[in-house]
């Protein structure tokens, strides 16, 4: 019994140390590195939800949305975890639907989903409400909250796999480009 308790204590301290180390890396904006480092073995950290949450937010910041699929299933024990799991699930779902709609021309105009403040959700909402046809395969989506901002949404077929590209323009200048597939 004592051995079990000691083992549990040791495990909890190891997890706590790893979490605080990961937090430091997260604050140093090492998002891509964190996401790739733990993508293969994140299941081993299922006992530490804080660790899984830090990993998930790193993947989200790095734009590796598919990597959220595994943590979504692991986040369920605390309110924070459940809130964030539904937040990640919404973004992942919107990404998949938007990709499907753009490539296979599926009508999603009648869809009603929750939204988030993440760029992909914003573009998803604008695309669902959009009534204009694409020009040369490019959708121009005007931001409803910011008149100076608009987004370009299109499918790039340069590589062997089709990629969904979101470009953010502010005052007609390209500010950011996000690529998902």
């Amino acid at each position: 019994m004592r051995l079990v308790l000691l083992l549990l204590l040791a495990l909890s301290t190891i997890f706590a140390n790893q979490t605080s180390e990961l937090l430091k890396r997260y604050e140093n904006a090492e998002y891509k590195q964190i996401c790739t480092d733990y993508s293969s073995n994140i299941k081993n950290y299922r006992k530490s939800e804080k660790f899984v949450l830090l990993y998930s937010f790193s993947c989200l910041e790095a734009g590796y949305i598919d990597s959220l699929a595994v943590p979504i299933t692991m986040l369920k024990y605390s309110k924070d975890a459940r809130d964030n799991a539904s937040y990640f699930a919404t973004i992942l779902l919107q990404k998949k639907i938007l990709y499907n709609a753009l490539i296979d021309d599926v009508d999603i105009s009648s869809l009603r989903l929750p939204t988030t403040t993440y760029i992909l959700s914003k573009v998803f909402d604008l695309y669902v409400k959009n009534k204009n046809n694409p020009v040369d395969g490019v959708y121009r989506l005007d931001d409803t909250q910011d008149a100076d901002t608009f987004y370009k949404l299109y499918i790039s077929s340069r590589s062997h796999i089709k990629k969904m590209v979101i470009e953010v323009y502010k005052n007609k200048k390209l500010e950011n480009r996000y690529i998902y597939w």
Partner: protein
Amino acid sequence: MHNLEQLEKRWFIYKAKKYIPIALLTVLVTIALIVTLLFKSDVKKELAVKKDNIIKKDEPIVPVSFVENVVIKEKREEYAPLVLQPSMSFMEKIKSSEQEKTVPVKKVQPVEKIKITKAKSVTKHTKITEYELLTLENRFAKSSSATLGLFIAKYYYKNKEYKNSAEYALKVNELNPNLEESWMIFASSLAKNGKKDDAIQVLKKYIDKTHSSNATTLLKDIIKGKFK
């Protein structure tokens, strides 16, 4: 002589009495037949209706998204989607647990070492010189970049210059109203400046728009007087 007329009457009555039960029986049987026939037709109708329902259930289920329904489209226009916010309070929990761990270590460590750690933390905040700050402010005035403005607001907030931090956070909010951090800095700066009512109003408006969990916790802290 026999009274023939009376005899005939009696014979007629006798015959009638003989046939009355048979007649009654036939009438009852016919009534029963009619009732059963009517009942059967009702049952058939009911069965037909049920069959229709079963057939409808067996039909392939068409997803709502692919049904061209005007009512759905009208409802969609009225629909205000639920805005999900990331819950970042777990980070504070990690930090607080870290602090708890470091407290006993500080007690054991000699005084000199503590001084060194403090000096390190100070250098983090005073990395920017006054000249650099001025140039940053000038750059912000020219470019009106929200991220730069947020950086300046954060800097002022960390250095307890709450009037300046509120001013820059407000500018950032005007440039980009979706940056939660700048709203939080703006409200916190107002509260630190003693303008608690203004901070509460700002947070309430922001929460109405975004349903932010971080903003609600800050609002609760300000109302309860926990935020100092």
